[in-house]
């Protein structure tokens, strides 16, 4: 969630932000995630990223086939080579 907050702050400052979920982080997009009332729902926060002008959300293909994703999800599935290209094209990369 800390990473998403940083992404939303950068988006609010007019920066061109892409979000990449790697490894098991892609399961945040799975349907039926149970989140304690005291915590924020990562999947719903991810779905709100367009409100912060973040339109580019990428997911690692390693575990994606095992995810039953939430409806109306607009993400791009990329392979490790694609991730390398995405990271190489960025001015700055923050990892969380």
């Amino acid at each position: 969630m800390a990473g998403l907050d940083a992404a939303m702050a950068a988006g609010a400052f007019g920066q061109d932000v892409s979000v990449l979920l790697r490894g098991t982080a892609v399961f945040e997009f799975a349907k039926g995630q149970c989140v304690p009332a005291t915590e924020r729902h990562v999947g719903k926060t991810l779905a709100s990223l367009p409100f912060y002008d973040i339109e580019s959300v990428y997911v690692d293909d390693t575990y994606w086939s095992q995810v039953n994703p939430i409806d109306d999800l607009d993400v791009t599935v990329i392979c490790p080579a694609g991730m390398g290209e995405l990271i190489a094209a960025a001015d700055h990369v923050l990892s969380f």
Partner: protein
Amino acid sequence: MKFSLVVVTSPEESRACHRALRFAAALNEAGHELQQVFFYANSASIGLSHHEHTDWQNIAQATQAELILCSASAEHFGLEIPIAGFSIAGLGAMVEAGLSADRVVTFG
């Protein structure tokens, strides 16, 4: 080259904070400019009194870098008044530093 650092984990969770300190010292020795160290998420607990701050304060003095504790994280840890050499600010400060830095390096 201008650098900005982001530390994410607390000293109790990992060695990331220590590595960031060593990296900051190495940057200074190599003649690079360190603009800001942003202590984000759990790393903001570095501002609690039981932690050792002298090394960071020395780095800030030597480099003129800002040491910033994330405001939301500081609130979470009950930090209202920052310790000497540190300040409290929001994520916008981190983004602004990133805009003017050549490199942003995350430790966490």
